[in-house]
């Protein structure tokens, strides 16, 4: 179906204040959506209570309302404008909740406004944990054993039935607010109380914890004709137990076989098709048992999210822009790939590089805050590294953290810990776990011991160990004995010149390393993020630098 010509004016709901768990990704998606809809000749009205956003710049929309995100504000806008449709999927959970509230009060009906890009029943099914579970069970999709509790006593009762470890998840909260692990009985009372209080409807899900399973996320797009594509598959470096927003994540998935991936793909597509009548972006999370390769569905978010912003950058595919076009009636197979401009938007991006996202925490500024990572998101931002290998990408991400880290190679912020202390330390996920894992590998701790302590997939640890091996060779060398092969190897694995200089020691400077490698002809090349692994010529790609040859 081509564009729906009955839509002449669209209201986009923003996400409000930037808080931990919901940051500028919705400014990005909202801005993309506004542009995408306006270029179709449709009037865009925008509401956001946060003026410190790009989307509220006067040129982004035909009319911008800086008003509190309340039903009253919505009514005011609908009074003052002739709005045909509202797009609530670009402003995160906040926008969806507001759209839902207005729906319940009959506001949309009163002003004859259609909700586009989402189905209200779909929101309920996706966001209410009990409905979600029942829906999954109906569809035959496995989920972790769980019960919904509306009171403390009920919760306690279910916890005894299911057994520990458990997860307490409050219904309808942002970024996992109020959620927590319960490893044993002593932690139960506090976690239950906190969860019930965090939920606006005083409801929690008491769920069996699948600690140690691997976590994957699929970013999908669906159109009105039920066409579905997977834009990106993201693998979490941290196993189940750390909020995705606080996890180091990698795309494309590194350790996923085709059989396991197709099982996820089929399940995600069935979930999305069954979710209700909507067109747009969606995110589905799965946990995979590495031993049996069975999967369980964790959650589905019928909207663009933090991870779709990352997936857009990771693949080059503009998810929010296309999602907005789907919401106004286009189908995927009628749109073109925005990057190649001569192939179809209905396809699944292929990557010939690796991206690594590392969250950025600010525990320095929150003295006394609990820095253990869990189900509630604590990071305040994230960095993305891109390279022609996982090692290069993870180093670039570490170099971008704007802390004292100089890549993953050298980071000596913590006083040197002994191997046993390190193993103990990394068994609890904290913001610097990646660096301490590297320290442990440098200290000769075995990969098996680290897997046992962290449940992180050994493939990633082997890769980090390779970085340690290179660093050890660099430590052995000095500027004169540094061979071209070793220098090349270090550059290909993402070592910065400064990092190499530090490893060589003896007061060698970054400039000296730079001069040496220039003299040896080791220089960076630039590669494209083009959505298609170079299969087609790209017209509007973006570039990253790397070392080849």
């Amino acid at each position, binding site marked *: 179906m081509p564009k729906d010509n009955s839509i002449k004016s669209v209201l986009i709901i923003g996400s409000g204040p930037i808080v931990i768990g919901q940051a500028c990704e919705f400014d990005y998606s909202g801005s993309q959506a506004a542009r995408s809809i306006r270029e179709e000749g449709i009037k865009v009205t925008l509401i956001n209570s946060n003026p410190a956003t790009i989307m509220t710049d006067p040129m982004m929309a035909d009319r911008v309302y800086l008003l509190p995100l309340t039903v009253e504000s919505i009514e005011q806008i609908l009074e003052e404008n002739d709005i045909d449709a509202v797009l609530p999927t670009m402003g995160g959970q906040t926008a969806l909740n507001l759209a839902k509230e207005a729906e319940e009060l009959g506001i949309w009906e009163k002003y004859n406004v259609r909700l586009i890009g989402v189905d209200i029943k779909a929101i309920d099914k996706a966001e209410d944990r009990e409905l979600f579970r029942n829906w999954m069970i109906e569809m035959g999709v496995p989920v972790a054993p769980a019960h919904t509790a509306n009171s403390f006593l009920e919760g306690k009762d279910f916890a005894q039935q299911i057994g520990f470890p458990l997860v307490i998840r409050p219904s309808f909260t942002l970024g996992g607010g109020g959620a927590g692990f319960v490893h044993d009985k002593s932690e139960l009372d506090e976690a239950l109380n906190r969860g019930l209080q965090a939920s606006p409807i005083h409801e929690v899900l008491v769920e069996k914890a699948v600690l140690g399973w691997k976590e994957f996320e699929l970013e999908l797009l669906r159109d009105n004709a039920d066409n579905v594509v997977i834009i990106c598959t993201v693998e979490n470096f941290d196993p189940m137990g750390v909020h995705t927003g606080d996890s180091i994540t990698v795309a494309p998935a*590194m*350790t996923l*076989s*085709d059989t396991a991936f197709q099982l996820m793909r089929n399940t995600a597509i069935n979930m999305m098709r069954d979710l209700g009548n909507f067109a747009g972006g969606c995110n589905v999370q799965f946990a995979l048992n*590495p031993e049996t390769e069975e999967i369980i569905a964790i959650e589905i978010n019928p909207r663009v999210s933090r991870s779709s912003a990352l997936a857009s950058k990771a693949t080059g595919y503009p998810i929010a822009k296309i999602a907005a076009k789907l919401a106004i009636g286009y189908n995927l197979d009628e749109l073109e790939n925005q990057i190649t401009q001569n192939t179809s938007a209905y*396809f699944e991006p292929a990557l*010939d590089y690796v991206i690594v996202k590392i969250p950025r925490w600010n525990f320095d500024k929150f003295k006394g805050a609990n820095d253990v990572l869990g189900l509630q998101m604590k990071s305040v931002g994230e960095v993305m590294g891109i390279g022609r290998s996982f090692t290069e990408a993870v180093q670039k991400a570490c170099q971008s953290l704007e802390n004292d880290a100089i890549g993953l190679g050298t980071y000596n912020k913590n006083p040197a810990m002994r191997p046993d202390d390190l193993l103990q330390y990394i068994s609890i996920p904290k913001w610097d776990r990646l660096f301490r894992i590297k320290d442990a590998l440098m200290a000769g701790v075995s990969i098996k011991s680290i897997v046992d302590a962290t449940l992180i997939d050994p493939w990633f640890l082997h890769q980090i160990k390779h970085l340690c091996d290179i660093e050890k060779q660099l430590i052995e060398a000095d500027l004169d004995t540094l061979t071209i092969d070793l220098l090349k190897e270090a550059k290909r694995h993402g070592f910065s010149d400064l990092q190499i200089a530090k490893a060589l020691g003896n007061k060698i400077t970054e400039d000296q390393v730079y001069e040496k490698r220039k003299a040896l002809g080791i220089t960076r090349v630039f590669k494209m993020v083009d959505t298609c*692994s170079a299969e087609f010529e790209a017209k509007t790609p973006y570039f990253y630098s790397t070392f080849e040859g």
Partner: protein
Amino acid sequence: MQPKNSLVIMNNSSNQAILVLEDGNVFYGKSFGKIGTTTGEICFCTGMTGYQEVFTDPSYTGQVLILNNVHVGNYGIYDKDVESDSVKIRGLIGRNLEEKYSRPVAQKNLQNYLADNNVVAISGIDTRALVAHIRTQGAMNCIISSDGKPVEEILELLKSIPSMDGLELASTVSTKEPYITGQKYATKKVAVLDFGIKQNILTNLVNRGVAIKVFPAKTSAQEILDYKPDGFFLSNGPGDPASMDYAIETIKEIIKEDKPVFGICLGHQLLALSHGINTFKMHHGHRGLNHPVKNIITGRSEITTQNHGFGVDPEAIKQSENVEVTHVNLNDNSIEGIRIKNKPFFSVQYHPEATPGPHDSRYLFDQFVGML
């Protein structure tokens, strides 16, 4: 053709390998898999999962494969993830070919698997530059060498590789003897012409409750008809379909029965050829798990797995009175599916059985079995 770059004799102790293209371009990398020298037509596959299924796909016979995905081997080798009984690629080119893997059910690593199967591979290659080169210059022959072979010998070998154009390979990978598979007491029987069939095509047919007899590529029409099948399946396979007169003749005979015929990939090209539609060698083919195809009969689209270096001629179909297009590629409008007017014959260029790849197109097996 003489190489433009001068070849450097390698120091074999440092584990080096060399890739030489027909047009004279040279790439240096690290030896992986078997130490040796291999030749074939270079091609690239953009899929990000399912390397083992790709290596064992008979349609890749004679090909030296570039995998665009930068890490290959991460989840090891699992004996169930195969599409035939042996590795079919002639060589492998990658950016990072991995020895270390993690997958509890896997039995061995990529290095040992390739070495055990005599596949010469090269790692550390700027695969993106190489793929861009093939995209612009087209498919060509190449050599990977890691055994320190003298330059003169490599150049001689390069000249001796036959062109894929006009090359008949299907009969070399087809079963040698006919065999029975599927449901023993099924009421419907399918005769499968094996030109290099993928295991999962048979699995998809078997799962739909039919009895199957698989015939070698060069079986006579009479022998196939003696099985008294309710339908015919034309398999995928390697090589140039236009070189397969024997198969085209057989198909012309069996379609006289007016029973359902379903073709995939090479089988699709052969169905076209047997109806007077010619095929051609593509510039660099379609190989990946993400190709968009529109079913123009239903209006639904599907993401497909593809692996072909030849295609059917759209102009010839336009002029044909009895062949019509059912599926088109949304990227380049190439022909992805045809059917014969007023006959129960249809075929697709892509792989609805897709291992590896999306399962969007399994409905074609239902369609075929439903017609029997």
